C-alpha cells in the first residue's frame, strides 16, 4: 500500500478509536452554587437529596509552604490546636460532640492547604456549621493546648516518620529537589522549631491566616438551599474579615546536573532506589500528562516497568511511578525495590531504558486506549461520595482556581495526545535535571 494511504488508514483508525471511547457519556454532572459572603468567605453548595447525610468542610489557603523557615511545622501544628476547643466548646468536647451526634470528623494539613470536615446525618447539618464557624471565629489558643499538642505531634512524628520503614524517603526527595522553595520541608516540620515557638506567635498566626477571606466553605449533601444559605449567613457572616493574606512567590533555579545521594535508614532491610524529578504545578497541563506517564510506566500488571522489572526480568520486588503535585511545583518519583542481589544501579538502568523509549516512540493505540479507560474509571470514583465531592470542590476552587474541574477534569486527560506524552517525557524526565537517591539500610554503612 502506498505510504500516503497507510498514513490515512492510521489516522482514520485513531479517529475511530477516539470516537468509540467517547461512547459512554458521563451522565453525572456535579451541580453546585457558589457565592461570597461580605467578609470574603467563599461558599460552595452541592445539593443531593438522594443521600441521608451532609458534609460541612472548610479549606484554608495555608499550608506548610507558608511556614517560616525557622518555624517549620506551624501549619500542621495549628491544625492540631484547632481541636483544642473554642470560646463555647470546652477542651475535649469537640470530638465528643461529633461522636455523640452520630457524626465523623477529620482534618489534614498539606503543603498548600489545611482542610477540616465533619459529616452527620442530614438533620444535624447545622451542628457542622456551628462547629466550623466556632473554630474560625474564636478558637482557644492557650498554653495548655500548645503543650499538650506539642507532645502529641512529637509522637506522631516518631510513629509516622522516625520509627517507620522508609519514613525518611519523602524528606530526602524534597531536600534534594528544592533548595529555595518551602516545599523542601514537610508539613510535620521540626520539633526544635515547635519547641521554640511562643504563644504569641500562634496567636498571630491565627490572626494572619485563619480568616474568612482566606477560606472556602463547602456544604455537600441533603439540605434545602435557602435554609442552608440563611444558616451560613447567621453562623459565618459575623466573622470579621481579616487582612489580605500574603502569598509566597519563590522560584527555584533549574537543576542542571544529576544529584546523587545516599541515605541510611535503620528501620529497613531492603534498599530502595528513588529517581526523582521536579515538575510543574498541578495547574499546568504538563502535570496531567505526567499523570498519564505514571500510568504507562507502572499502572497495573501490564505496565511497562512492572512487566519488565517485576514479571519478566524479576529484578524488582516492586516498582512505582508517582506524581505528587502541588500548587507551585510537583515531584515525580519512580521508586523501586530490588530482588535479592540485584543492585540499585540495575534498577536505574532498566528505568532509564523505559524512559528513553517513551521519549523516542509514541505509545501504541492500545496503550492509549488503556489510559483513556483508566482515567475515566478514576474520575468517576472521585465523585462517588459527598465527602469526596466536598474536598474536590474546595480544592479546585482554592488551589486550582477552577471549580469547574470537578466536571471537566476528565476532558483534559482525554484531550492529551500521544505526541504530548512523548514531548513531556522529553521535557522533564532528563538525567541531568533529577535527583537519584540510594535509600539504604543503616547496616549497609561501611
Amino acid at each position, binding site marked *: 500500500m502506498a505510504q500516503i494511504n497507510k498514513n490515512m488508514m492510521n489516522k482514520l483508525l485513531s479517529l475511530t478509536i477516539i470516537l468509540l471511547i467517547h461512547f*459512554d457519556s458521563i451522565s453525572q454532572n456535579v451541580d453546585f452554587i457558589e457565592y461570597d459572603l461580605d467578609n470574603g468567605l467563599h461558599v460552595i453548595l452541592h445539593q443531593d437529596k438522594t443521600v441521608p447525610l451532609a458534609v460541612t468542610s472548610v479549606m484554608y489557603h495555608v499550608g506548610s509552604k507558608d511556614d517560616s523557615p525557622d518555624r517549620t511545622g506551624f501549619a500542621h501544628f495549628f491544625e492540631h490546636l484547632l481541636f483544642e476547643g473554642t470560646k463555647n466548646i470546652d477542651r475535649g468536647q469537640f*470530638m465528643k460532640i461529633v461522636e455523640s451526634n452520630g457524626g465523623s470528623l477529620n482534618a489534614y494539613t498539606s503543603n498548600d492547604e489545611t482542610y477540616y470536615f465533619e459529616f452527620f*446525618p442530614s*438533620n444535624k447539618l447545622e451542628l457542622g*456549621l456551628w462547629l466550623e464557624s466556632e473554630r474560625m471565629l474564636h478558637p482557644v489558643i492557650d498554653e495548655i493546648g500548645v503543650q499538650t499538642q506539642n507532645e502529641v505531634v512529637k509522637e506522631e512524628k516518631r*510513629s509516622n516518620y522516625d520509627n517507620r520503614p522508609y519514613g525518611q524517603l519523602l524528606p530526602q526527595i524534597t531536600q534534594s529537589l528544592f533548595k529555595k522553595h518551602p516545599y523542601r520541608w514537610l508539613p510535620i516540620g521540626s520539633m526544635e522549631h515547635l519547641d521554640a515557638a511562643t504563644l504569641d506567635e500562634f496567636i498571630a498566626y491565627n490572626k494572619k491566616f485563619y480568616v474568612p477571606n482566606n477560606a472556602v466553605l463547602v456544604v455537600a449533601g441533603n439540605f434545602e438551599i435557602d435554609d442552608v444559605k440563611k444558616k451560613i449567613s447567621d453562623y459565618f457572616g459575623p466573622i470579621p474579615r481579616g487582612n489580605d493574606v500574603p502569598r509566597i512567590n519563590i522560584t527555584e533555579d533549574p537543576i542542571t546536573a544529576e544529584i546523587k545521594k545516599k541515605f541510611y535508614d*535503620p528501620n529497613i532491610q531492603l534498599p530502595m532506589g528513588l529517581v526523582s524529578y521536579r515538575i510543574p504545578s498541578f495547574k499546568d497541563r504538563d502535570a496531567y500528562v505526567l499523570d498519564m506517564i505514571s500510568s504507562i510506566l507502572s499502572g497495573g*500488571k501490564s*505496565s511497562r516497568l512492572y512487566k519488565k522489572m517485576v514479571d519478566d526480568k524479576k529484578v524488582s520486588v516492586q516498582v512505582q511511578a508517582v506524581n505528587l503535585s502541588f500548587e507551585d511545583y510537583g515531584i515525580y518519583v519512580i521508586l523501586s525495590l530490588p530482588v535479592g542481589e540485584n543492585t540499585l544501579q540495575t534498577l536505574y538502568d532498566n528505568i532509564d531504558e523505559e524512559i528513553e523509549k517513551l521519549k523516542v516512540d509514541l505509545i501504541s493505540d492500545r496503550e492509549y486506549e488503556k489510559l483513556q479507560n483508566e482515567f475515566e474509571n478514576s474520575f468517576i470514583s472521585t465523585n462517588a461520595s459527598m465527602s469526596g465531592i466536598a474536598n474536590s470542590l474546595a480544592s479546585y476552587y482554592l488551589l486550582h482556581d477552577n471549580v469547574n474541574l470537578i466536571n471537566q477534569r476528565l476532558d483534559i486527560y482525554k484531550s492529551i495526545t500521544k505526541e504530548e506524552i512523548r514531548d513531556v517525557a522529553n521535557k522533564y524526565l532528563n538525567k541531568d535535571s533529577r535527583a537519584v537517591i540510594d535509600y539504604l539500610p*543503616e547496616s549497609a554503612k561501611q
Partner: protein
Amino acid sequence: MKYLKIILLILFTVNVTYSQIDRSKPPKAGPAPSIDLGNPKSFVLDNGLKVIVVENNKLPRAYANLDIDNYPDYEGDIKGVSSLLGAMMGNGTKNQSKDSYNEEVDYMGATLVLSASGGYVSSLKRYFPRILEMMADGLINPKFTKEDFEREKNVALEGIKSIEKDVQTIANRVHSKLRFGDNHPFGEFETIESLNNISLKDIQNYYKKFAIPNNAYLTVVGDVQYDEIKSLIESLFGDWKKGKKSSYTLPQANNLDNVEINFVDMSNAVQSEIYVGNLMDISMTNPDYFALKLGNQILGGSSTARLFMNLREDKGFTYGSYSSASTSRFKGSFTASASVRNEVTDSAITEIIKEINLISKEGVTDEELDAAKEKYVGSFIMSTEQPSTIANFATNISKFNLPENFYEKYLENFQSVTTDDVKRVINKYLLKDNLRVLVVGKGQDVLSSLEKMPYNINYYDKEGNATEKPDFSTPSGITVESVLNNYLNAIGGIDKVAEINAISTLAEAEVQGMKLQMIDIKAKPNKLVMMMMMMGNTMMKMVFDGEKGSLNQQGMNNPLPDDQVQKMINSTLPFEEIGWLNDENVKFSSVEKEDGKTLHVLQVFDNSFVSYDAETGLKYKMTELVEMPDGSRSPQSTYFEDYRDVNGILFPYVVKIPMGPQSLDMNVINLTLNPEVSDTDFIVEN
C-alpha cells in the same frame, strides 16, 4: 474625614442583619432523615450460588463481589495452602494466557482479584459484562503452573522470614493460637515447615474441594439492568460445579478458669503488646447483640471511650487503647488491647482489668449509652449513602440467617437497649474472672514487675508453644573476670596471648557482586590501622596512633570523634580482653539465649556489649547500640565464627555483619602474628 469614615463603617455594618443565634451551645437537630434500604433483587442458581443485585445508575460503573462462604476448614500440616492458592488465581486461565489476561484487565481500567474464598471485580459500565466473564473464567478454569507455584511459595517463605522480629505480628498470631488452640482453624498459622509441605497437587485438591458454589454469594452493584445481568450470570456461572459438603466440625475452644498472664519474650521489643480478653458464644441472631455492641462501644470503641480516656488521655501510657466484641456464627471473642512502653506494662494491664471490672460491676451511665446509640444510629444512616451497603445487608441476612426485617428494625433495636440490658450483657459475655492476658514484650524489662501481679504466669515462645520461664538472673560464680579468663583460655591461654605484639589481617567479602578487601593491623599498646578497599580503590581508612586518630572515607578526611578517641585510648590491642580484665567500667550485663546458645554478655562501654558463648568461652558477637534521630537506640551486631588455630591461638576466620536479610561476610584470607610494624604504619593524616 476619618470621623466620617468611621460613622459610615458603623452604618454599613449595622445594615447587614444576622439572626440571633445562640452560639453558646450546640444547635438542635431536626427530625432524623428517612432511610431508604433500597430494593435488592436476588435469585439462586441450580448449583447453589446466591446472587443479589442492586441496581444503581448514579454513576456509570459496577462491581461484583464473590464470597465463598465455606465452613471453616483446618489445613494442619499444609497450613498456607489456601493463601498460596489465592496468590495463584486471577492470573490467567486455561482459555487465556496470563499476559493476555492481565493486559486485558488493565486495558479496561478494571480491577480483578480472586482467591479460593472469593473475589472482586469492578469496571466502567461498558466493560462490566467482560470483566464478569473474566472473573468467571478465572474462577472456574484456573491454570496452576509449576512455575507460578514455585514463585509464590518462595514469596510466602520470604514473608515468614521477614516477620521474625515483628513484635506486633507475632503477638497477633500467638494470641489466636493460644485462645483457639492450634488444632482450630482460627488458631493455626503458616510456618516454614507447613509451607514446605505443600505440593502443587495439594493446591489443585484444595481448589477442587473449596472453590465451590454451594455456599457462595455473588453481589452485583451498580449501573446494571436486572434481567440482562441475570441471564449473563446464569450463562457465566451456571457451569460452576457444585462440590461436596465437608464433614469437618470445629473443635471446642475454651476459656481459662482464672485470670492468667501468658508471656512471650522478645528481646527486641521496645513496646509491650497487650491483649486482654475471652471467647464468647454469640452471633448476630442473638437478641443480646445490640446491648453487647453498645457496651463495647462505651468501654473501648473509640477515642472518647473509657479505655482510651484512661490509658492515653489520663495516664499517657499509649497512643491508643481500644476493645472489640466480635460476634460469630462459630466462636466470638472479646479483646481489649494496647501497645505500651515497657516500663508501664504492668500498670497498663492493671488499668485494663480495672476498667473491665468497673463496667461489669457498675454498668454504664445514661449519658454514655445515649452517646453510643447516637454513634450507631449516625453511622448506620450515613452508610446508606453507598449502594454497596444495601447489597451487604441483603447478603448478611442470608448468610447469617437474620430475620428478613433485621435492618428495618436495626435502629429501633439499638434505641430500645437500657442500661440494665448493657450491664447484664457485659457480665454475661465479658468474663472478668476468666481473662487471658497475653503480653509480648521484653522480658528483661518487664517480667519482674509482672511477677508482682496477683496472677499466674505461663510462658510461651514466638510460635505459641509452651516454654520455660526465661532466666535473666546472673548465675552465681559468673563474673567479668571469669568470662574474660574463659575466653582467653579458650583461645590459647593468657601467656601465649601476651606474647603477641601485633596482628595483621587480610579479609575479603563480596558486596552486591563486587569484592571488598579489608586490611587491618592492630599493635600494642592500642594502635590501629584499618582499610577497606574495593577494586583497588581505598574506600575507607581509619588510623589511631595511640593518642589521636583519623577517618578517611572516599576522599574526605576527618579526625576521629572524641568519644571514639576516648574508647581507643582506653583499649588494649591487639587483645581488648586483656585491658578489660583490669577495667572497672566493664560490667556483667546479662545472660541471654540466641540461636540455641547461652551467652554471657558484658557491657564494655556505654553502648557496647560483647557476648561470649557460655559453653566454649569463645567470643560470639559484639553489639553496638546506635543512637537514632528520635532518641531511641538500635542494636548493630558483629558475629565471630569459624575459629581456627594460628600458632596456638584461636582466631575467628569469619566475621559476619547482618544487613537485614543479607549479611556482609568477611572471610579471613591471611592472618599474621607479630608482623614487622613501625610507627609509620600508624601516621594520622591531617
